[in-house]
């Protein structure tokens, strides 16, 4: 059980900052206009919300498996496959939780509007300077929401992780899979313990989000619980 908790927390701790980094330019670009190219990209980013996790996991398994063209590119570096590895799990989590990072950050950038950046420009701030000194701090609520959602979502992952991780204890077995296996083995005590822990964790995460929402004013930026 403790191994599974360790792997899960590590996965969430690695996925969250990586995904915030990845989602930032994407959310920025999506917030900066409309058009069919952006709509298409927005739809692809949102796919993991509606796609059954097993479908996503299946394609990721193919993509990260030894016969995929993607892995062929990595073979000169001694990487044959990323399926059933922790790295593969991280990649899967990044894809699976992408919309939960992009959406709140994008909303925050959109809620900010163009004015603060125009003001910054008239005060001699370059676009890069304005991004760091104005856009990021103004969107901080979106970032907190995104971080909490991604962290919580990664902790609760099941289908994707099962498909590409294969539940190897100590490496790719996470808590949600551990619960499933405990129930299969009729080990209800352990299933109760982990489930109760996840329930409490999820509740606390949502409470934190609500409090942050209140604190930072009325404007909504992000998915409300």
């Amino acid at each position, binding site marked *: 059980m403790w191994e599974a908790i360790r792997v899960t927390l590590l996965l969430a701790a690695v996925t969250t900052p990586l995904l915030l980094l990845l989602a930032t330019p994407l959310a920025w670009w999506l917030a900066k206009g409309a058009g069919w190219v952006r709509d298409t990209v927005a739809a692809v980013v949102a796919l993991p919300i509606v796609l059954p996790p097993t479908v996503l996991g299946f394609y990721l398994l193919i993509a990260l498996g030894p016969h995929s063209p993607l892995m062929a590119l990595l073979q000169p570096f001694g990487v044959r496959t990323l399926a059933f590895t922790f790295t593969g799990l991280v990649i899967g989590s990044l894809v699976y939780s992408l919309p939960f990072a992009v959406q709140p950050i994008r909303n925050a950038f959109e809620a900010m509007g163009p004015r603060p950046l125009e*003001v910054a420009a*008239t005060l001699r701030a370059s676009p890069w300077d304005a991004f760091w000194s104005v856009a990021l701090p103004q969107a901080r609520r979106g970032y907190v929401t995104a971080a909490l959602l991604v962290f919580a979502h990664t902790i609760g992952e099941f289908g994707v992780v099962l498909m590409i991780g294969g539940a190897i204890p100590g490496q790719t077995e996470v808590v949600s899979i551990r619960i499933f296996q405990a129930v299969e083995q009729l080990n209800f005590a352990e299933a109760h313990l982990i489930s109760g822990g996840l329930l409490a964790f999820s509740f606390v995460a949502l409470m934190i989000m609500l409090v942050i929402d209140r604190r930072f004013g009325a404007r909504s930026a992000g998915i409300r619980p």
Partner: protein
Amino acid sequence: MIQVDLSGMVGDLALSVRFEAGAGLTALMGPSGSGKTTLLRAIAGLERLSGRVQVGDAVWQAEDRFVPVQKRAVGYVFQEPSLFSHLSVEGNLDFALRRSPKTVDKGAIVDLLRIGALLPRQVARLSGGERQRVAMARALLSGPDLLLMDEPLSSLDQAARAEILPLIRDVAESVPVLYVSHDPLEVARLTQRVLYLHNGRLSERAAVTLDGLSQAEIEALALKALGS
């Protein structure tokens, strides 16, 4: 000396404007939709019209160049006070001061706009008039050679307007100001130099002087100006 020669399409409106302005405050008036704000934004470089903009010796825009906003010595006061909500009043002022290439006397500007007591306050706790005063101070702290003001009083109540109007006059003594307004009374209190923008073109008109006029006459003038 400010020289502006700009033209272009703004929606359905063909804007074609050419004027020069010197020190002090020049008002830019005209009915809504006449392109006042677009013109101001184009002078700042926030929007692109074709033509030429020169302020002093600095050419901001010409056929072969378009200096980006952040490299223009321009101050801009927007219609609604656009302070950075993540910074305090002092933080907003320092944002401009840190990036200003000139040495600016912060204390003098803080005194000029009477915002000394507001410095530690959060932006959200300021009144509309206080915000606009801070926005003006912030624009001045960036060391502008030209200050553009886009109806800075229009979102304020009468008391706040009466309080800020003389401050704008004071500000215009140290930096040339181009002031957009649709309120003839407001403009009459500020300057004798008025440019009227109508159907995308400029016309200069005789200045309105309020001295010695009765309240009724002033109101009649205002109505006439609004009707045009």
